[in-house]
């Protein structure tokens, strides 16, 4: 059996269910308690679990992440929320030098089951410091795992895996997805990291969609299908580990690849995926690997300007049609 719920509810259900089954799990962050989270993700949790386990913190990202690490090293399973992913910069030493390296520096001994939830993406007129998608920064830091779910089902299943794991996880939640709906199983489930999923099948091109761009990509897929072009939409779901095998498999079938994400184009997740495809699937490619991503500028405040620099369905359609018409 299954139900239709929002992305935001799915994340809440994952947290609530894990907190019910394990007293070591707790949530802390700015406004996560009484307020219910600035996006309402933790609404109602304060009432069920109280101020000890749903902790409002000062606006202190370094202390939030660092205290999460210390508690994790002592056997707790903290979930910490970075209200806007942009604010993780304040905690960068903790994330990069402490959290990511705790295990390796200690010779593999330290379990650090810390889940860091970050709201990323441009929600509209939030400007340059509340709109970024910084997930690629962390792909360059060994020791972190990175989840970037796009559907309620994946958000719930991946968050459970993050909370139950033994390693630190950065869990990116696109603000534009919070109110999107999707089916989730009724029963308890977890989705392993490193397993891509297909959102539709086709042979014209492989379109790799990351996180918040999935609705845009599915919109483009529908338009392309109307024109008789069937694309394959693949969602890696986690960037670290990355299921490159499934992406290569799809490219072997379609011979064309487009990577779509909301992170900036230069040095974004697409750059790494394109490099891996070039290394592992070049003989199968009939055209260059393309990226559809946000322009290399800070996110502007004006909604028209913002819209102009973010990837949209037309950009995806153009990329796919360009690939199809490409001749070596």
């Amino acid at each position, binding site marked *: 059996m299954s139900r239709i719920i929002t992305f935001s509810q799915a994340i809440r259900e994952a947290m609530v269910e894990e907190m019910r089954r394990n007293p070591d799990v707790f949530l802390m962050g700015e406004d996560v308690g009484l307020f219910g989270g600035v996006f309402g993700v933790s609404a109602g949790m304060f009432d069920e679990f109280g101020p000890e386990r749903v902790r409002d913190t000062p606006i202190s990202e370094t202390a939030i992440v660092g205290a999460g690490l*210390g*508690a994790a090293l*002592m056997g707790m399973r903290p979930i910490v929320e970075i209200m806007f992913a942009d604010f993780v910069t304040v905690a960068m030493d903790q994330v990069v030098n*402490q959290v990511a390296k705790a295990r*390796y520096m200690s*010779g593999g001994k330290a379990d650090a089951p810390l889940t860091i939830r970050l709201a990323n993406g441009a929600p509209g007129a939030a400007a340059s410091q509340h709109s970024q998608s910084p997930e690629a920064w962390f792909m360059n830091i060994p020791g972190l795992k990175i989840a970037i779910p796009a559907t309620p089902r994946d958000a719930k299943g991946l968050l459970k895996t993050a909370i139950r794991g033994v390693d630190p996880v950065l869990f990116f939640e696109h603000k534009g997805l919070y109110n999107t709906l999707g089916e989730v199983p009724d029963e308890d489930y977890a989705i392993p990291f490193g397993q891509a999923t297909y959102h539709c099948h086709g042979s014209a091109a492989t379109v790799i969609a990351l996180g918040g761009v999935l609705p845009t990509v599915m919109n483009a897929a529908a338009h392309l299908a109307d024109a008789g072009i069937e694309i394959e939409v693949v969602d890696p779901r986690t960037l670290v580990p*990355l299921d490159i095998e499934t992406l290569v498999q799809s490219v072997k079938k379609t011979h064309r690849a487009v990577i779509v994400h909301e992170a900036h184009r230069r040095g974004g997740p697409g750059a790494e995926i394109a490099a891996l495809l070039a290394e592992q699937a070049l003989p199968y490619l009939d055209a260059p690997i393309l990226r559809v991503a946000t322009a290399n500028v800070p996110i502007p405040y004006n909604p028209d300007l913002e819209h102009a620099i973010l990837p949209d369905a037309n950009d995806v359609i153009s990329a796919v049609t360009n690939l199809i018409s490409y001749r070596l």
Partner: protein
Amino acid sequence: MALIREFELRAIRERRNGLIPGFIHACVGQEATAVGACTALRPDDVITSTHRGHGHLIAKGGDPRYMMAELAARGVGYCGGKGGSLHMADFNLGILGANGIVAGGIPMAVGAALAFQMRNEQRIALAFFGDGAVNEGAFHEAANLAGLWKLPVIFFCENNLYGEGTPQHRQAPLRDLAQRAASYGFPGVIIDGNDVMAVYEATTQAAERARAGEGPTFIEGKTYRYRGHYEGDPMVYRSQEELAAWKARDPIRRWRERLLASGDAQASELEIIDKEVQEQLDEAVAFAKASPPPPLEAALAGVYGHDHDGRIF
């Protein structure tokens, strides 16, 4: 204290001899803060340490053999030869790690204290840091959180008067750094950091306070390092007179004199300790020398808890 001092001197010598490839920040002169503080803790209490952390580790029960092996980058070292001086940790002894980032370990200690408070355990955490760390944001964020939640944590500042190569008074508008505690709602205590009993007593009181649920204490131990910030530091920033003045207040000699004067120890007993220390360090160096380096494939292991079929990602 004698073991810490001799460990440092031996490590410095073995670094010159080529046994130790990395850099060392020696704590010679600061032995009383490490020993006085850690002696006041229980075995299941935890500490976070600093770049100048060998003394803290030894005082918390660290084994000089595995420490020396780690400094020598050997596979049996505390971190499998992958951490070195700056990252030595032994979770079984409650040593959450030295740290290469100034103030980097303080939030971690606060988080450990949060775990103890949430589970109603009688354990506490102690964060060692230097005078330089109190100018870092991590200290202030962590101190605020600990004060707010009355966490069982001790902020132990070893004020050795220099943050790297710049005098403390040129880095902050305060000489007494314990004053900073007031703004976070907990007491700040200033002690002679070269008096091991004073350190022990202050830490004992702070520990009692923490265990009683009354929250953190900031202890500032005034002390001095005889060596440079790192081995090889030309030390252009201080005078020989200043160094000599501090050596006249040497923590180990003062403790010896006190033990002898009170009759708590005989000179012969202290000589035996000195001899045992040398034997222990001979053994540690021999142990490190005899230990093989880690296999090269160890470089790729231990990044994540599960190796995902050996894949590095």
